[in-house]
């Protein structure tokens, strides 16, 4: 799959929560080629600091306006600069990069499980699904969570402090949802490593396929710097940028990943 380096204008900026924005960019080649789960490497400004590009999952595409979206949550220097960007500003984007969520044959329901800003690529997946789905969105408290109108009927929420939806972890919500649905299901998850490890365990116990989208510090995004390893169950490493970011959950050595 080819990728592109484009200078893309921000065409829409909306606040999703007090510390999270949606940025839509116009970038025809990326908007048309991208598949759910893929990411872009974005240069937050053309200066030596912050130096490296930042990786963002593509959260939605709208090929009719040649546009793709990312969701940015305030974290470090790079994301804070991005949060301040306004419509009309141009950013240098490399993408689409990496692997995508793969269709699972013969399922009736897709369970999309997102933790925090890890929800982003699951919206893009939901846009393309041809089966019923639920989006399970978990966070620490309601201030982290948000709904998008087009997916709201399918969204279920949970918070650790009980301020929105079910109280508890997103794996509790996943287990509850699994009991409610009938027919074959598959899980597609994105979020912190601890959460992905727990989701993968739940899916394995339930005997259903699970794909996870992972994150790791990376410099290049294209398989060059070897900076983003995750441990492979067979030994050695897989690389988030080129082997992933989407992996079959059974490929990842979660115990080693989480315990270091």
């Amino acid at each position: 799959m080819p990728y592109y380096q484009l200078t893309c204008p921000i065409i829409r900026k909306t606040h999703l929560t007090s510390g999270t924005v949606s940025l839509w960019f116009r970038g025809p080649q990326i908007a048309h080629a991208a598949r759910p789960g893929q990411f872009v490497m974005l240069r937050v400004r053309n200066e030596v600091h912050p130096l490296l590009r930042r990786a963002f999952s593509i959260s939605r595409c709208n090929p009719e306006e040649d546009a793709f979206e990312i969701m940015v949550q305030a974290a470090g220097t790079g994301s804070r600069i991005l949060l301040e960007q306004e419509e009309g500003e141009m950013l240098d984007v490399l993408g689409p990069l990496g692997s995508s969520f793969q269709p699972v044959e013969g399922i009736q329901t897709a369970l999309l499980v997102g933790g925090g800003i890890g929800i982003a690529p699951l919206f893009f997946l939901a846009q393309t699904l041809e089966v019923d789905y639920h989006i399970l969105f978990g966070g620490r408290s309601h201030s982290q969570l948000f709904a998008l109108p087009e997916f709201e009927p399918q969204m279920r929420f949970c918070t650790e402090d009980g301020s929105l939806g079910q109280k508890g972890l997103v794996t509790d919500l996943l287990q509850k949802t699994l009991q409610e649905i009938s027919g074959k299901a598959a899980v597609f998850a994105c979020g912190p490593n601890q959460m992905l490890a727990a989701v993968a365990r739940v899916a394995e116990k339930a005997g259903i396929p699970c794909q996870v989208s992972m994150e790791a510090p990376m410099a290049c995004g294209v398989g060059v710097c070897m900076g983003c390893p995750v441990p492979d169950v067979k030994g050695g490493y897989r690389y988030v940028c080129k082997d992933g970011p989407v992996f079959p959950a059974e490929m990842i050595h979660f115990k080693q990943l989480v315990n270091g």
Partner: protein
Amino acid sequence: MGNRTVDTRIQIGNVIFHSPVMVASGTFGYGFEYQDVVDVSQLGAVITKSITQEPRAGNHPPRIVETAAGMLNSIGLANIGLQRFVEEMLPRYDNYPTRIIVNIAGSTPEEYLTVLEALAPYPQIAAFEMNFSCPNVKEGGICFGVDAKLSFNLTQALRNITSKPLIIKLTPNITSPVEVALAVQEAGADAVSMINTLVGMAVDIHTWKPRLGNVTGGLSGPAIKPIALAQIWQVYQEVSIPIIGMGGISSVHDAIEFFLVGASAVQIGTANFVHPPTAMEITSGLTRYMQEKGLASLQDIIGKLKVEA
């Protein structure tokens, strides 16, 4: 002066490179990964990731940390190993649009010799760069790059294996790089490349842990450019073989500074991650600069730094 042709060719050992702008080992993969966005035919050469005798999985993560105007890495020479390199990569270099320089690393002198012996006969390879200076590999215990005698002996043994250009990549983690540079020149090296990354560290004040899995790593990027320039200037005044300069180059302006302090060619490293076409743009920017200044060949700027007596 506007349209006069300029000669950007550079000779290293018995090979002529059409451009003095190359991409550094470890920042351009095996030469294919950036082809969607970089026209590699415009580069003087692509230097491969370090190849070791056996495949290496690399260091425990995290391996990358961004620092002020730079980055730390502790990759640990992750690579596919000699056998897979020969089987999978060499055939793909048959019609590669520019010259391939293979970077070789090892934990023992024997490993360097074995890998060079295996690769020397392949016509797809234009030259070899010897990594005497990886800061991220512990086993073996010997860092050849800081010891002039060891560097001399190993370079001499490598020289006996091939007549292709032999470039020794020097470490900057040393009081003065001059002694080692002189030693490898004496042993028959065709060029030295410098500087490799500087040993550095970053700390997480919340967990009190180092931010790299390997504790320390190699610092690269614009932050190290002044150190690179100073070390190259030092070596240029003592050594007669060509110096391939690198360390934080991200623009043609940076590259010209390197030529002026004595580099005959330059390598672009970390900047590839930030802006993949950097080396390409430096090649064309260099031609424009030489045209504007009325310089016929690179020899007119190499080492021409004006220092008051």
